[in-house]
């Protein structure tokens, strides 16, 4: 198992947000995390990432068989975890290019490698754009494309995407999804896929372009239901999250 979360409980600023969370993601699998606003989806992401504000009070997180529950974020990233944020902060004086060089293992004085230049071009970024301070004055779509570009540089084994299509023009969703599929090894045969992912999505639109193997519904800090993504989405669209959970309870 690539990622194994057992009985996880998380507090944020003294308030319990997640409880009894169990989740396992295998190599080559893509899971999707659904749930209403405030259910704790982002908290789960950031707990897996190890941000200090997210206090794990119970349970454990294992990655590649190693207990990472108490590891600092940078060490988790070094092990192969990556993330694309929904609303990343703007940082003055640090350019997209600075980050891309670091993420692709280049020295800061080197010229950006041709592979990254090509990928940037594919994501409709000009050279000038790469010299801009990261996220400063970016449009919603630019933020998302810049996050994906950085993940393409990083090439993580396990990637979490927080609402990767929110704020993106419809015409660019497909473009973005194409690169998401690259990050998730979707172009490979199922058995050859090594890289895995967890997607947070509100409306599920991105799932028209990125196929998930399993879906989970998070309600009030707990995974209330897991199963086939298409069936669960259909149920949510028909009866809302509450109906979906009720259905799960009947099973």
């Amino acid at each position, binding site marked *: 198992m690539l990622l194994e979360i057992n009985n996880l409980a998380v507090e944020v600023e003294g308030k319990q947000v997640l409880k009894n969370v169990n989740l396992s993601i295998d190599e080559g699998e893509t899971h999707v995390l659904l749930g209403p606003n405030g259910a704790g989806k982002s908290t789960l992401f950031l707990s897996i*990432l190890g*941000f*200090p504000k997210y206090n794990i009070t119970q349970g454990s997180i294992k990655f590649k068989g190693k207990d990472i529950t108490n590891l*600092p*974020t*940078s060490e988790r*990233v*070094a092990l192969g975890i*990556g*993330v694309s*944020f929904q609303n*990343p*902060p703007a*940082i*003055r*004086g*640090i350019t997209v290019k600075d*980050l891309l060089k*670091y*993420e692709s293992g280049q020295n800061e004085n080197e010229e950006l490698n041709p592979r990254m230049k090509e990928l940037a071009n594919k994501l409709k970024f000009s050279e000038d754009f790469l010299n801009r*301070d990261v996220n400063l004055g970016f449009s919603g779509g630019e933020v998302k494309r810049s996050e994906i570009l*950085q993940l393409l540089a*990083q090439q993580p084994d396990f990637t979490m995407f927080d609402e990767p299509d929110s704020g993106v023009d419809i015409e660019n969703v497909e473009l973005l999804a194409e690169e998401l599929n690259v990050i998730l090894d979707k172009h490979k045969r199922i058995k050859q896929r090594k890289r895995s992912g967890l997607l947070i999505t509100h409306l599920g639109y991105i799932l028209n372009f990125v196929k998930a193997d399993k879906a989970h519904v998070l309600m009030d800090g707990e995974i209330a239901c897991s199963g086939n993504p298409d069936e669960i989405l259909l149920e949510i669209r028909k009866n809302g999250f509450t109906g979906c959970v009720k259905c799960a309870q009947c099973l």
Partner: protein
Amino acid sequence: MVLQDVLSVRNVYEDAENAKDKKAALGTDITIENFSSEEVNAIDVIDDLNDLSKKDQNTLLSVGVDSDESDRAGSFLQMDQSNIFTSELSDNIELMNTGVALEKYDWLENYLWNAVKPDADKYTAEAALKEKEDGTFSGYFVRSKPGTKEFFPVQACMFIADTDIMQTAHNIIIAEENSELHLITGCATGEDISSALHVGVSEIYLKPGSKITFTMVHNWAEQVEVRPRTAIKQADNSTYINNYILTSPVNSIQSYPTTYCEGVNSKALFQSIMSGQKTSNIDMGSRAVLTGHNSSAEAISRAVANDSAQIFARGHIKGDKQEVKGHVECNGLVLSDDSSIYAVPILEANSTGLELSHEAAVGKIDEDEIYYLTSRGFSEEEAASMIVRGFLNMDITGLPPILADYTKKMIDMSVKGM
């Protein structure tokens, strides 16, 4: 009439005498008597900047003064009270010691103690009285000839080599009509300088249609007191750009360069990068007085305070006419509980129909920024230092490409060395 008589007629010395004990309005008060006066031209001149020790050459380089003089229009080096090197490498400029220039040009006396008043405070008074006592002038005179646009910068360096001394300099910078002049001035101290006082008077004049960029880099020893006194006079359609970079510790520095945008469409831009470390007491301001029709000014500063440093980042724009515009921006990062930043933006509007604005933000490093970078693989410490460097490494605008590139490298270098 001899120069001293002219200045006496203009009451320069009398005014200075009266201001001998006048404390500066801002900054810690320095006891001038604690520092000894240096003899003028006591140090031998050198033929080449490469004749300096490697260590001194490196110190010069850290403040932007290249001893190879590559891509430079000229060089001036004052060590203590001695002008030990001058070179003019371009026909577009004139560069020499101020005393020499005053002997050469009678008209220059009109520019002396004109923009800066001798009785501004006890430091200007001391500088004026020292000139009278020495019977000569230290500092440099630089002038760009009418209609010329010199691409390469002139480099000037004020270097303190002896301990416990007071160094004074009186610089006069003139951009003639429709000319362009770029200056890098670096101020530094040699090794083992435990304490010293630097008083630099700079009077800058921009004729119609001219442009000056003045980039000053300071790298003083920890116990040095620095009191630059700078004023600028701008005629019609002139542009003045002032860049200031300080990233090493200093005991105290207080300066408030002031530009008088008297000409129609005159423009000024001040950009300051300050890093306060150890016990540094830094009081840096930028002031613009807008009296020319359609004149405008911007004062932007970035300050980072660490250890027990104290920084006052001031910006003052005074609008005295309609249709003038001004903007002050002070941003600061406080990195330790014992350090402090006071951001003081001042807007003064004395007419209708003008546009003055300011923004100031002082705080600690945003945790979200640190965590974002850790999610890309940086450790928290690496992330914090990257953010500080990024914050200080603002894009200096208004310089020609080569100088912009060089300045960026210089900022990079000094910020990395913090």
